[in-house]
């Protein structure tokens, strides 16, 4: 009897500590990913978004923008749309926060109006693409709970596989699995699982470039396994160290954006 109690306790403790260990290691790796990307300051880029429907037909959208790291909080970013022609000059300014809703303003150039919009529909599609708003906003560790799964090769690269569960109830996903490069802690692939825990989409980063000590992927490809649509983001003209300040993320700079 006593042996049984001891055995049960030991086994339970063993399982619990494995779980805690998995969570701790998951968070530890997530922090290493964040640290590898810390201190990039500010950057600007151009972006071509190509949407492909199930018949293989393509549509493109062009935009450009810049972003800035904020100490102790999420990034600030400005995006200006270039094509299609009817939305040219429309701009969006977002202040991401580690906890709570993001702040987002939209500039409508036809009437020179700055409008602060509600930011809770993060699960909705960005410009009709396969990227949801939450897929594109700055990825803060505090928005998820983390769990280390295993080490494995993904697309020929040695990776740590991590599971992360979004804390936001409004998220469109039940969980993600991210594959993190063992060498340099950059994210290589993310699998997105919908609320029914079925594999919904896969995001693959490729054409990596080193800017100083920061890795950036020139290409991000999102494939939706359920509707057979794809969206490809192609970054170009990426610049770092452009010396942005809070003044570049103000109502006036939003109105001036071109």
């Amino acid at each position, binding site marked *: 009897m006593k042996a049984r109690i001891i055995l049960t306790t030991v086994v339970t403790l063993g399982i619990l500590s494995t779980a805690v260990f998995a969570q701790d290691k998951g968070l530890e790796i997530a922090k290493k990913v964040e640290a590898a990307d810390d*201190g*990039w*300051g*500010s950057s600007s880029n151009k972006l071509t978004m190509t*949407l492909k*429907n199930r018949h293989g037909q393509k*549509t493109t959208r062009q935009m450009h923008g810049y972003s800035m790291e904020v100490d102790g909080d999420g990034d600030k970013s400005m995006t200006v749309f270039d*094509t*299609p*022609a*009817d*939305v*040219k*000059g429309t701009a969006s300014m977002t202040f991401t926060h580690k906890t709570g*809703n993001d*702040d987002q*303003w939209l500039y409508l150039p036809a*009437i*020179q*109006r*700055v*409008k*602060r*919009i*509600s*930011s*809770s*529909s*993060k*699960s*909705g*599609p960005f*410009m*009709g693409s396969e990227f*949801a708003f939450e897929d594109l906003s700055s990825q803060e560790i505090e928005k998820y709970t983390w769990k280390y799964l295993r080490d494995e090769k993904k697309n020929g690269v040695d990776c740590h596989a991590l599971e992360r569960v979004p804390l936001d109830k*409004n998220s*469109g996903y039940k969980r993600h699995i991210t594959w993190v490069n063992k060498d340099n802690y950059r994210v290589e692939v993310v699998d997105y699982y919908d*609320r029914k825990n079925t594999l919904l989409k896969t995001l693959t980063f490729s054409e990596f470039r080193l*800017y*100083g*000590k*920061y890795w950036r992927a020139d290409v991000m490809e999102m494939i939706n396994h359920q509707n057979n649509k794809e969206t490809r983001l192609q970054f170009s003209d990426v*610049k*770092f*160290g*452009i*010396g942005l300040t809070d*003044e570049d993320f*103000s*109502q*006036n700079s939003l109105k*001036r954006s*071109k």
Partner: protein
Amino acid sequence: MRKLSIISIGVGLSLITQIGFAQPAGQSGGDAAEPVKKKPWRSELSGEIEAAYKYFPDEALYASQKEAYFATTFRPKYYLESDKGKHAFIFEGFATLDQYDNKRSHVDVRELYYRYVFKSFEVSLGAKKIYWGVIESNHLVDVINQADVLEGFDPENKLGQPMLHLSVAPKWGTLDLMIMPYFRELKFPGLPSRGRPDFLGLSLGDARYEAEAEEYNPDIALRWSHSFGVFDIGVSNFYGTSRLPQLKFDPLTWELYPYYETINQSGLDLQASTGPMLWKTEMMYRIPKDTARDPITAFVLGGEYTFGNLFRSGVDLGLLVEYSYDDRPLIESFNGLTNDMFFAARLALNDVQSTEFLGGVMIGMLNQADKTSGVFSGSKIFNVAASRRLGASWKLTVDLLAYNCIDEGEIFLNFLRNDSNVKIGLAKFF
């Protein structure tokens, strides 16, 4: 000897220049400064051309009003901007050609100004369009620009306003100062295009002003605005010629004329953005310079709730409710929104072709004729709009405007009661 020293100075200078400008391109990461390079100015010409067809199903009230007509509108835009945006020249033009109505066909310069930016300080000189406010159905605080009513009753169509505009943005908000040296009159369309009272057959005379300098009276506006936490706030003050005229009758010339009084108008606009819910208000307090006239208080309270990604379909549904109050008697208020409720819904499909639907109704809470009041007692104005991108650079819009149950007590709306219409527009963007 002299030649040698000149050469050596030249070589020395060029060497110093090379060393001074050569910097590692971001090798250490972070915010290391980029080498200084002179970059060319950027410029772009863009705009849209729209062809529209408007049809009026009800019989016209006045003889020269048409049943249907075509119109075409051209909106070119051009800007020239220096490398970091320090200097900029901005132009936005406008031209409408109406099939029958000569008074409605018009050309305007919406914007033509030079802008200088230095850190958080900005100055603009020229004609400009300024937008203030957060409410959708009744723009109380948006006083700077004259409305272009030749394009309809939506005050978002604006005439360019010449001004000197100074703007500074310290940590505690943004301060805007506008000095406007020239006033733009409200121009009424002719009768053929409808949407206009016939003024009882009287002709419309020249505008008269309370200000001695008339249209050259310098008007001045000041505004403080700030975003903090969930709030966006703006507090403004305008002193000068009111953009909205009163219509007065001159028995000597037997004509109606627009009279522009001098006013001091204070405004407040405030929005609280809490997740899917936006709480909005605009308030206005206007003191006419003529002390014989009463001050005017008006406010709008509103809310907008967005169901984002409805049932995970990607569709966004927004619901709006706004209440407008104005303490003036109905006959004196220009837009007749003295006690009115506005309900609207906005549906965005978020598809590749950006299909959108918008439906709204403005309801007078008080029936002016029989004085019964209630949420659905008075006149109703319905508006339904749909838009969709065609191909890569075309856009199709359909707009329905319906005047419903206009009670006889509504002074202004009575003239418009048969002017319900549907407008189909096809625009090409470049």
